């Protein structure tokens, strides 16, 4: 086990995870809104925000997929120690963490079934930067229109076309997090 695997978790889990969930819920219910979270110091390349989301949402009942460079011994050990989540292949994952490039193709992930559309994966996409400048977002949670610096639009449009099936995404950069549920329509500007 790598030495930094035992550190970097929540110091006060009930309170910190409550605040983190509130930020995540606010982000997912208002696509285009960027929230700030705190409390985790995960090993690189895992960002603070991605670490906080995993500590808040992942546990022994939620298989996690690590994509690309995120599939490192230190990240595997950190998630195993702090969340107890099994680390699995993309198709079996409830949560997946990685850069947009490493996630490709996103059609590997579970999109739910017509009977149970909730059985779909949640992607935590690590971004080089995260701003509200970018493709135009419309849909539930958005008053008029919103914007978000997405890596591309075609994949998110295809995902939205599957509604009510499809994956849901959190975009993370440092301690910032934004949400992009499958219900959001993404268009180029």
């Amino acid at each position, binding site marked *: 086990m790598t030495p930094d695997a035992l550190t970097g978790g929540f110091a006060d889990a009930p*309170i910190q995870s409550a605040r983190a*969930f509130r930020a995540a*819920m606010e982000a997912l219910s208002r696509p285009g809104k960027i929230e700030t979270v705190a409390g985790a110091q995960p090993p690189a390349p895992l960002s603070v925000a991605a670490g906080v989301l995993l500590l808040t949402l992942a*546990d022994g009942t939620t298989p996690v997929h690590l994509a690309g460079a995120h599939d490192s011994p230190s990240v595997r050990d950190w998630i195993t120690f702090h969340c107890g989540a099994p680390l699995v292949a993309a198709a079996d994952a409830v949560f997946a963490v990685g850069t947009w490039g490493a996630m490709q193709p996103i059609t590997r992930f579970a999109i739910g079934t*017509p009977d149970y559309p*909730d059985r779909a994966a949640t992607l935590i996409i690590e971004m080089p930067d995260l701003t509200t400048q970018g493709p135009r977002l419309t849909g539930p949670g958005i008053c008029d229109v919103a914007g978000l610096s997405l890596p591309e639009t075609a994949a998110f449009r295809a995902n939205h076309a599957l509604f*009510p099936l499809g994956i849901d995404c959190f975009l993370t950069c440092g301690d910032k997090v934004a949400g992009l549920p499958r219900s959001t329509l993404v268009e180029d500007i």
Partner: protein
Amino acid sequence: MTDQAYNFAYLDEQTKRMIRRAILKGIAVPGYQVPFASREMPMPYGWGTGGVQVTAACLVPEDCLKVIDQGADDTTNAVSIRKFFQRTAGVAVTEATADASVIQTRHRIPELPLREGQILVYQVPIPEPLRFLEPRETETRKMHSLEEYGLMHVKLYEDIARHGQIATSYAYPVKVEGRYVMDPSPIPKFDNPKLSGSAALQLFGAGREQRIYAVPPYTSVVSLDFEDHPFVAGKAPHDCDLCGATDSYLDEVIVDDAGGRMFVCSDTDFCRGRKDAGHIGRLGVQTDGGA
């Protein structure tokens, strides 16, 4: 056992994670009922165990909580749930709609329009709008997946055939974002228009039936109707007898054995606010001692 012996907001962390994941999926698929492993709570089913679990998963220490039961802040259910979270989460509580960040409600939406940053948590007894038309869960699940809602329109049509109008006056079915038919919980149909395009996040918890669903802010929620029988948000054709409000939902109160009755606002905070502002109804008295 002391109050400090409980985890923050009563539930253990594993349970809260499970509920939180269900809430997020509910937000991602507006109107779809997400199954969750409802826990036994220290109150009986039917007293808001679903709403309490959703509230417990959402609360942060900085929250200000308001709980209403049929619009009232001072009924047994509202008072006991408010006390429960005061003890187990240490949050501030209020009766003022404008001051609350989280509002748990049984069967009403506050009269005051909600704002961004507020969360409205509904207590839901039967989350499945098709349940009384089709008792089998396997069938209703298939109907939702195939978007097969003809049966609900037949029910509304039979109302018209029998009563000359759609007689459903509460738990009036709605369609969320043009996809899922949803039970808005037994709110009066007077409240249905407030579901649509609300600035607040709306979460629904059904404890006994183990379902969580959500309506994100600014989401289209349409009450089902027919072109020749459009939806009408009805209320008693009276004004509030205490504050004189003409546009609020009213409770009818029997006041004697001779058929005497009065109509009062169901939303106690709204009514008190109007009385404090100097409005007086037919049977009202001045509250600031002026009259």
